[in-house]
């Protein structure tokens, strides 16, 4: 279960949204209209178990998300979920990786301080001795043109989902 976001962590004025999560109680998230640029030359890496619980993350992940490593390890990956992302994007992710396939996509992520950052993400199943053990995601710096396209598409999809 993911604790609600804490107003004390948030910088600037924010908007509050209650975010429904799959298989978890809804989470109160606090949104600030500020983008943090993806750092040049870095890869943001995380590994999850089969349910999407984080088992490893690198220092770029810690820095960009704003959460300490101790909070991230053992947390559901939806700790980064931003309400501007349509549910269908993540359904596609899970359908693909559970079928043993690689998934790519542009993702808007929510930071602990309420700001957001865009990434281009790839998720692959980790196969060990013929069995899927978990999933690895590597994010890289996206092209701005692609981010603009994705933002438009996601807004349409969200409207279709009856989103906020």
């Amino acid at each position: 279960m993911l604790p609600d976001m804490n107003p004390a962590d948030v910088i600037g004025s924010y908007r509050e949204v209650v975010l429904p999560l799959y298989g978890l109680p809804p989470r109160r998230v606090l949104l600030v209209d500020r983008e943090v640029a993806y750092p040049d030359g870095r890869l943001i890496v995380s590994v999850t178990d089969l349910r999407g619980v984080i088992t490893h993350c690198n220092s770029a992940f810690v820095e960009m998300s704003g959460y300490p490593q101790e909070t991230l390890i053992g947390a559901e990956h939806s700790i980064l979920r931003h309400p501007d992302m349509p549910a269908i994007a993540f359904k596609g992710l899970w359908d693909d990786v559970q079928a043993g396939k690689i998934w790519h996509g542009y993702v808007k992520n929510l930071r602990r301080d309420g700001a957001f950052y865009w990434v281009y993400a790839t998720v692959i199943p980790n196969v060990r001795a013929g069995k899927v053990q978990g999933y690895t995601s590597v994010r890289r710096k996206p092209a701005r043109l692609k981010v603009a396209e994705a933002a438009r598409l996601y807004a349409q999809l969200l409207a279709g989902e009856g989103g906020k």
Partner: protein
Amino acid sequence: MSASMNGVTSEKYQLTVSPDFPAKRMSSWFIFNTWLQKALGMPIHLELYPDFDSQRAAISADKVDIIYANPYDAAMLVREKGFVSVARPAGKCDECIVAVAAGSGAQVVEDLKPICRVARTDDPGVNLVGMILLEPASLGHDNTQILTVESYPLVAKALMRGEAEVGFFLAEAFDELSSLVRHQLRPLVHSQISDFSHVLLLGSRLAERREEVTRVLLDMPAEAKGQDVLAELGFAAWERVTQEDTEFMIDLMDTLKA
């Protein structure tokens, strides 16, 4: 390749090194090989291939038993050829530098425009990461022109002569360019990935000696001769690499290749 005498098999094993090592380290690998043969008490022949293609052909033909592999090739060696991992140089990671000529108008990678001419070597890992570092500029295989040259000094030359707008370097190779050359170049992006490194792998004929090989490598700093050999190679110690460490690195590499 193997001669049988009185039922005892005397085999000669082959050691090879990823062709991306700096030219000045060539003799170091001969020194390392001499040391390794003595430490393990077995005959090993060092074969240095001039390029990635010829090395790959030797791997396919199962000629290689010990390899100091770059992270890109490690994927194929472990997943397709059953190599097992032993050790990597402690605290040494493979990073990539995307550089321009010092006088270039580009201040950030997003300033680069298609059709962009890219100078690079045939090093597959560096080229993969280099292309990823160009993605924020919306540059990819369809709007870049690739100029493949034989060495990193030649990548530098192509930039200085204006034959390419950007060049890809293994960071270590960039640092080893002469300062005269380096001053005519400017890094635009320096990767900070930390998870990729070269790794020493054993093929199937030696896989069962993995523990022994690991032990002699880890013990190198404990004796004077070992220290000298490490100094030649340019690092202070080997560090143990578990199979899972290598599998993790390969998963990362696979996400970048996809």
